[in-house]
């Protein structure tokens, strides 16, 4: 549901940047999407197509670079993937885990003509 608002914001931001560059056409939006960001890429892509209609972004491609969730054990410093192992370090079995990647939700770049 909140993909609607996320996409509205995304389209506004991308069109704004394209206009600032005096672009005639927005052709690609490159989005970085963390696995734990809570946004569903298919849903964002669906809204993106609808919301760019009749704008300089009509027909633009949206490309997602997905960032998997990553975490670090604060006890032994090893990298862990808590999603599969229930927030427990495989090596030392500590549950003192810090999420280090996977919350990203930003526009990396746009491509324009």
């Amino acid at each position: 549901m909140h993909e609607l608002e996320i996409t509205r914001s995304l389209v506004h931001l991308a069109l704004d940047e394209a206009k600032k560059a005096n672009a005639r056409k927005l052709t690609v939006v490159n989005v970085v999407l963390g696995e734990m960001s809570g946004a569903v890429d298919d849903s964002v892509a669906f809204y993106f197509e609808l919301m760019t209609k009749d704008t300089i972004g009509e027909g633009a491609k949206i490309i997602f670079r997905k960032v998997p969730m990553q975490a670090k054990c604060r006890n032994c410093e090893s990298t862990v993937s808590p999603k599969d192992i229930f927030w427990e370090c495989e090596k030392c079995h500590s549950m003192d885990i810090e999420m280090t990647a996977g919350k990203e939700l930003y526009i990396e770049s746009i491509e324009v003509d």
Partner: protein
Amino acid sequence: MEIKVLKNILDANDQMAMQNRKLLASKKIMMVNVWASPGAGKTTTMLRTAEALKGKARMAVIEGDVASSIDTVKLTQSGVTAIQINTDGGCHLDAGMINIALQNLPLDELDIIFIENVGNLICPGEFDLGEYKRIIISSTPEGEDKPHKYPLMFTIADACIVNKIDLMPYVNFDIDNFTRTVSGMNGKIEIFKISSINGDGVDAWADWVLKQLETYRK
């Protein structure tokens, strides 16, 4: 031609959240964003909190629900200042909605504003509202696995209230396991065990709130 952007997609929301934060700072009001699933006991916790803070801090509640003003009626009938936001289907509150609510609250008569976000453990976590602290309420009948299933909010909250501890004997909730998981995910989180029905543990939670207010105002 490629143009680097590197901007948070929710940039417009974040800017509005900053405006809210500035407005509240000018009035020395601490705002607390409260997250939970539907039925975790957010409103009852707010009522208990209001009782515990009586004479110590003046509070108001911004109520976020998809529809109805049931919770706002409950709060105002108990003498708590409350304002309702209906999201009409929306799954979270955003900073713009909060800005409008702030304009309709008697800010000069308040010390703390609690935002009772829409009952949902996913979407509200992504929207900064301009709050100073974030609280997650998890209730024992929901089960101790919620932090595993919805980790984002647990990793970014400042405090976690475990509500309905009076029901623990009936619902098979291993509180030690829950506490260990949540503290592991978020080394800074404070955990409070309360019963919003009989009031157990509410004083410790209210003391923490007052301590945060003191720190905020410094």
